[in-house]
């Protein structure tokens, strides 16, 4: 057995040497004995060469030794993986972060490959919960390779990358949905499940909108941390800027701060945000407003008025649509008022947005603008239906006239035919 292993080793070295010789003469590539040897090993040690071809670093011309150190020109494993020649093996934890940061924090070096790439990932990482815990000696927290993978690292623009927007939830969920891993930290593991029911997930995964938020959009990526109560509007406001602006100017801003409530999240939730319904607004038991406001207080009054105004516009749009649809169905030309209703629907959206100012008067401006359009459209619809009736009556009269002429003609024809036949 020993002899056989010796033979195998000698044969391998021969093959590798030949390969190196022809490789050097042929493609003029940097010698890399690491891949040659690892590809002949078994188990986890043979995985790196299998994955390496898909790695961004490989395509940029980097080799194993650029991260792991050592001498890739040596056939002897002792010489190739010599610590004196900088071999660092497979570092973990802080050492790993430092290893990646060696290049990724070096602006001059990174400029050679991608001038627009940020170089503050490592410093940002140490502001994250992951980084902070790592500093305290917790070796189970996420580091660079937990998210980006290892030996098969793809650019973020590659849909197969673990950090591509549509894959981020799965990447984070690999740890955060794992009860066993999260138990020591007392972190719940339902976030991914909730997120998959959210309007954001639907936009990202079903509608293919890559700008829709996923985990890192709100929590950050390298500096991942839960947003603090006070900064929720800033986070949501990155995309929903109008809502955030209205909220920050509203009386709710100070009240929420005082009560220590997370602004947007308190009404809309966080991971499982659903499409907002008008039923959230108002004063009946199922509404959100009624959780804090009670009959008689100004907020109660505002909520009631806002809901009534929105319902009024919504119903008015629906009745306009019904009248115009009936006219359209009867073949009448009503495309202009149908088109005008788009603006009324936009006014309804603006009014719903204005709810976040929690001021019924400012919301009423948009409701009134929408109502003006729906009233005109409904009137046009009724006019079209009246015109349809007029046409039907006109047709009946004209058909009677035509029929009388036809009957007259018929008798005239009989008369002239008889005359022609000499009757």
């Amino acid at each position: 057995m020993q002899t056989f292993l010796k033979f195998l080793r000698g044969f391998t070295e021969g093959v590798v040497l030949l390969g190196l010789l022809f490789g050097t003469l042929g493609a003029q590539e940097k010698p890399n004995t690491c891949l040659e040897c690892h590809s002949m090993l078994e188990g986890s040690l043979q995985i790196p060469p299998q994955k390496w071809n898909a790695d961004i670093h490989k395509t940029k011309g980097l080799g194993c030794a650029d991260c792991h150190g050592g001498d890739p020109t040596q056939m002897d494993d002792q010489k190739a993986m010599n610590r004196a020649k900088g071999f660092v093996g497979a570092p973990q934890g802080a050492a790993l972060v430092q290893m990646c940061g060696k290049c990724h924090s070096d602006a001059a070096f990174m400029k050679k490959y991608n001038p627009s790439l940020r170089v503050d990932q490592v410093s940002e990482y140490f502001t994250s919960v992951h980084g902070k815990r790592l500093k305290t000696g917790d070796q189970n927290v996420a580091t660079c390779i937990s998210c980006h993978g290892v030996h098969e690292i793809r650019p973020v623009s590659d849909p197969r990358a673990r950090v591509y927007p549509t894959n981020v939830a799965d990447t984070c969920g690999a740890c955060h949905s794992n009860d066993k891993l999260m138990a020591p930290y007392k972190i719940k593991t339902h976030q991914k499940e909730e997120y998959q029911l959210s309007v954001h997930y639907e936009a990202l995964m079903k509608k293919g909108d890559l700008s829709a938020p996923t985990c890192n959009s709100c929590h950050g990526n390298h500096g991942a941390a839960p947003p603090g109560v006070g900064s929720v509007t800033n986070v949501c406001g990155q995309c929903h800027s109008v809502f955030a602006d209205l909220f920050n100017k509203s009386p709710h801003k100070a009240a929420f701060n005082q009560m220590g409530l997370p602004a947007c999240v308190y009404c809309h939730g966080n991971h499982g945000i659903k499409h907002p319904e008008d039923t959230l607004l108002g004063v009946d038991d199922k509404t959100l407003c009624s959780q804090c406001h009670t009959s008689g207080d100004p907020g109660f009054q505002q909520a009631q008025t806002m809901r009534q105004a929105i319902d009024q516009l919504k119903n008015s749009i629906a009745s306009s649509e019904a009248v115009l649809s009936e006219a359209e169905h009867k073949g009448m030309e009503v495309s202009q008022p149908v088109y005008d209703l788009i603006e009324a629907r936009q006014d309804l959206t603006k009014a719903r947005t204005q709810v976040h100012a929690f001021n019924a008067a400012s919301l009423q401006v948009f409701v009134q603008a929408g109502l003006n359009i729906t009233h005109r459209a409904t009137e046009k619809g009724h006019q079209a239906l009246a015109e349809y009736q007029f046409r039907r009556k006109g047709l009946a009269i004209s058909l009677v006239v035509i029929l009388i002429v036809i009957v007259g003609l018929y008798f005239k024809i009989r008369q002239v035919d008889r005359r022609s036949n000499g009757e």
Partner: protein
Amino acid sequence: MSQENKIGSKFYRWIDERVQLANLRKFMAKKAVPQHRHSLWYYFGGMTLFLFLVQVGTGILLTLYYRPSAEEAYESVQFIMTEVKFGWLIRSIHSWSANLLIAAMFIHLFSVYFLKSYRRPRELTWLSGMFLFVLVLAFGFSGYLLPWNELSFFATKVGTEIAGVLPVVGKFTLHLLRGGDDVTGATLSRFYGFHIAILPGIATMILTIHLLLVQRLGMSVPRGVEKELERTKKPLKEVPFFPNFLLHDLLGWYVALAALAALAALMPWELGKKADPFSSAPAGIRPEWYFVYMFQTLKFIPAKILGMDGEVLGIFGFGLGGLFLFLVPFLDREPLAGRRTALFTGIGVFIVVYILTLTFVGYRV
């Protein structure tokens, strides 16, 4: 004689002196139309003429408001439909009448074909009629684009594309029809020119020849009727053209008018959505019903047949079919009796069944 009659006869004499109405009266009084069991088919020629005149009248009225540009065409038709007094009626009548005209013309064409009225000496009447048939189809094709709506835009795109696959002349024809590489405002103004100036000019000329030939040669009596009369030795029954036949014709026109009024008022012609050249073609796009059998054939035909382009072969086949119809009076040399005549009747039946089947399939698929 009353004072009014005196004025009437004075006016008649004045006109007669200048245009010799007496000759015309004599001609009209003498002119007779054969009457037999197939006389019904004579009225479809008159009905086609009536619907053509309706098209001329309503078309002229539409030009008062229609604006032939990609920016304004749709809006101007919308304006006609909503703002112009009875504009909806005029536009709907124009659209419905166009369809009824083509239907009446198909019936007229095939009734003449099956009764073999194209036989000597009426070859030129047939030829002029066939030219009118092609012209009316061209009227339909060019007019369909004018509202510049989604359906008409994409149907024109597909239709002109088909013309573009023809070998040698394809690219030239495509450019001639479109006024460029794509269907644009240039195509619209070009089609408008075809629809209201070029085609009407040619159609008026050929229609005049067609009507003059009909007047000159009279109505054809089907050979079967002639043989029966020869056998029974009975004289051919005739009715005076004026007023008997004209009154029958008028009755047919009034029936068509009643149908048009009912269709226009109860089923106004839709305007659809404005054409957006940058959007993708809506699903189920198909041309007007009278082109569906051709469109469906080209859809069914394999991409390659014996190494040749299937679409080109399909168009070539339709070209041959058209040429056959044009030349049928010269091919069917013995239409009076015999096997050859049965062959041409068979071909006619095949053409009608083919058109009906493919049209039916086109609407089902």
